[in-house]
């Protein structure tokens, strides 16, 4: 992992309350694997004090992109960054998705800003020769960045304004009905309620599901011990999302033990 001050290359609003930042870091770009995250310092003041943890969204050559909602002071400052602005970045952090293995099709399910780790994961999976489908849900069409950043996307909206009318579990069910459920593996990121519903659906059908958790962190590197999630398996009661996660088999953790940030 590295800590460096980069220069903002590009910033944009890509959907309703959805923002992206792009910057260049050769070291971090080359070291990052899908599912890992960065810890960004919004500015050099003490308010906000702590870094903000964001999944790496996309990497193109040495360019790194993150995507986020504005939910408070830190993300508001980050969303206002302009090209040329400095940004203190730490990363890559966390354990990547466990995407190696024998399976044919990867189904990437995301809700809202849970879209974050899916483009980099999709790119990697395609390079590994997997088939990739993205199922991405939001409340409305306006909240979806429908600009080609997802591989083979199926959209689902609560109000039916784009794609499947319903949630991502319904859209997944429809897709599996048409394409079959053999030789698939699922990766998901989104609100805890979505992950919980998806977990029930997958467990009922014996489908492997790995989820990427979001939780508030102070340090992102295991020293503050502030981001535990309860374990459902093993000898330890808690695992730290920053250093042992954020990507877990849904059945290894107690999802309800952490508050949903979404």
């Amino acid at each position, binding site marked *: 992992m590295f800590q460096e001050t980069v220069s903002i290359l590009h910033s944009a609003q890509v959907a309703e309350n959805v923002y992206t930042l792009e910057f260049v870091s050769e070291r971090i770009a080359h070291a990052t694997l899908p599912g890992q995250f960065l810890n960004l310092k919004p500015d050099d003041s003490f*308010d906000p*004090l702590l870094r903000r943890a964001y999944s790496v969204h996309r990497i193109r050559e040495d360019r790194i992109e993150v995507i986020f909602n504005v939910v408070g002071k830190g993300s508001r400052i980050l969303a206002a960054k302009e090209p040329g602005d400095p940004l203190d970045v730490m990363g890559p952090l966390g354990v990547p998705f466990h995407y190696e293995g024998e399976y044919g099709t990867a189904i990437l399910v995301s809700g809202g800003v849970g879209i974050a780790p899916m483009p980099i994961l999709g790119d990697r999976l395609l390079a590994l020769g997997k088939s990739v489908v993205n199922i991405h849900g939001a409340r409305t069409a306006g909240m979806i960045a429908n600009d080609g950043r997802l591989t083979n996307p199926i959209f689902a909206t609560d109000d039916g304004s784009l794609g499947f009318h319903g949630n991502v579990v319904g859209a997944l069910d429809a897709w599996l009905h048409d394409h079959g459920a053999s030789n698939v593996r699922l990766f998901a990121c989104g609100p805890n309620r979505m992950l919980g519903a998806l977990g029930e659906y997958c467990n009922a059908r014996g489908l492997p599901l790995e989820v990427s958790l979001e939780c*508030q962190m*102070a340090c992102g590197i295991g*020293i503050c*011990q502030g981001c535990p999630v309860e374990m459902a398996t093993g000898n330890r009661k*808690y695992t730290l999302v920053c*250093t042992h996660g954020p990507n877990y088999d849904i059945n290894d953790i107690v999802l309800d033990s952490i508050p949903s940030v979404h």
Partner: protein
Amino acid sequence: MPGCIVVRFLASFPIRQSQRHSSLVASTEITIRNVTFKNPVLTASGTFGYGLECESFVDVAELGAVVTKSISRKPRDGNPPQRICETTGGMLNSIGLANVGVDVFLSSKLPLLRERNATVVVNIAASSVEEYCYVLERCEEHEGIAGYEINVSCPNVKDGGLNFGTHCPSVAQITRELRGRTSKMLAMKLTPNVTSIAEFARACEGEGADAVSCVNTFVGMAVDIHTRRPKIATITGGYSGPAIKPMALAKVYEVRKAVNIPIIGIGGIMNAADAIEFLVVGATLVQVGTALFVDPAAGTAIARGIETYLSEHGMASVRELIGSLDTSMQPSLIAAGWG
């Protein structure tokens, strides 16, 4: 106290740069009892793990010392989520002394710290006097520990010390029992959540403590007004960060007037200027805590910043700075960057 630097107020000690030898490299060494710290900047317990997690960012040998996460007799899982939240200029934590336990610390963490030439101060937490003694005695069996800091002040667990830390006879008893069991540096970490911290510092001094660490976190609270729920699971937690610095400085000032033993100043130190404030008020060493969550290399950067300050002000040693608070003149705002 044999071998101990006795620091008294060096008040009314105006520094005139022109009179000093500014070309010399200032000494930042500090000795307390039989431990020589290469600089006065330590990591605060619970903010730097076991000193091994940040190797990508910092060489632990460059720190004055690594103060470990609180070590208890048995491993502790810690408190349930949510354990932290950010507040204006600070943060609340309720970690609950999650740690690997003394056996694992001694077998798998301490040897690695020794390999890295870290000066190691073991912070000990316990729920009984016997447990404090047990953990210290286990540590005494091992080489490579410079001294101890005793956490009698964790605000976040029912059995984690604060019930001791707010009861002066208990703090005195723990100090006495541990003093009888080690010839190494013994520092007692005090809570600010008492009416008179000076009384506790005097008790520690009276029972042979080599230093007092001032201060642990302030009890704090934050509420989510949308759900009307507390923002951390234990409802109240330990408040740290730059927001507490003025309160922590006032506690150090209070203790400085009460005891002769060294003070380890802690509370919201984010940069060298903050650390220097603590030294001027009378701390002999400082600990950097919450700042490490933002920048794991903050400790070494602050140590370098102090060295630069000493050179720029023509001081030969950091000891010239300690307790040099000048209260004889009008308060000074301009040089502090007012405006």
